[in-house]
């Protein structure tokens, strides 16, 4: 299947899978409690264990969800980072859409603005 055939809708195909392999592997490992502890204790050291590039480390450490996905991160894996802070998935969605969280809830998901 060709990527980018549907506007603003990246498919996680070979190129994303290859590009994001390090980030996703690091995030996958957060499914284990011991790794979550290691991440919390010294985030950079944990990321270095998975040989993330400087660019990837910056994206993770600043919780730049848009950038993580741009670098090949797949949401299902990087959600495990959001479990540590914790960050609601709608905030991650808003970051992908490039919208404020409130606008995202209202305009995309159809939630009432104050409810």
């Amino acid at each position, binding site marked *: 299947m060709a990527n980018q055939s549907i506007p603003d809708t990246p498919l996680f195909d070979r190129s994303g899978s290859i590009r994001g392999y390090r980030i996703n592997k690091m995030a996958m490992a957060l499914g*284990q409690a011991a790794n979550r502890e290691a991440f919390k204790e010294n985030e950079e050291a944990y990321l270095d264990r998975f040989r993330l590039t400087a660019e990837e480390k910056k994206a993770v450490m600043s919780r730049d969800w848009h950038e993580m996905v741009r670098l090949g991160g*797949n949401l299902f894996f990087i*959600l*495990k980072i959001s479990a540590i802070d914790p960050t609601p998935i709608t905030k991650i969605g808003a970051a992908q*859409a490039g919208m404020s969280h409130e606008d995202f809830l209202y305009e995309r998901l*159809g939630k009432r603005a104050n409810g």
Partner: protein
Amino acid sequence: MAKIIGGLGTSHVPSIGAALDKGLRDTADWKPFFDGYEAGKEWVKEAKPDIAVVVFNDHGNTFFLDRVPTFAVGVADTYNPVDEGWGPRAIPPFEGATDFSWHFVDKLVERHFDPLVCREIEVDHGMQVPMELFFGRPETWPVKVVPIWVNTIQYPIPTPQRCWEMGKVLREAIESWPGDERVVILGTGGLSHQLQGARAGFINQEADRAWLDGIASNPEHYRNMTREDYVEQFGSEGAELIMWLVMRAAMNEKVDLVHKHYYAPASMTGAGMVVLENAA
């Protein structure tokens, strides 16, 4: 032979399980969602299934990108809930319908399917949440399970036609099984949602509502759609809906849509369910 007593279609959004864990069932955000499932729960209680075949996708919890199975089938004695990053959930382990699972694997390979056969494996919310929605939170599950994993994460994902064909083999396996178990089939995933890309937050209520009726009355239409069509109409993660086709194909050509429910958004997803019974 064993008997297919019904087909269930349902969302499996992880927030549903989290809402139950946090006691949010009756909050304004969640009550209408959960209330709509009560009819489905009642149906299951009356129908008394012995085996639940659950078709779902893993979400980067059990399988990593190092080895991605297009289809996997469980033949384990027990399936524990996997830690998805929030720590283990307090739900009981699932007991496997081991003998039937092996029989199904035999039929699949005979019919030119190429499953990954899994004997030691955990299950994520893709299976947990549908079970909770239809069976509640019992001390132990009242059914044995057959998990079927479908890759919907890394492209290429299987085609809708292939999912349909798998449903046909599932039916053949059930009908050729010497036991007299009552089998319910759960097709899970969706409805419309997109988590990634600038279209994130995409929900298509109109397409979702058409799906809930059409999957009963006109499945040919959905069977003939391409993977791209699914992504376009239901969002990149909404393409999970192809998994309902496995369930639908195992049912009769004509089915009764006995229950239906839709609610949006559950978290970031159009959510809902159907209960189908075979008609003549």
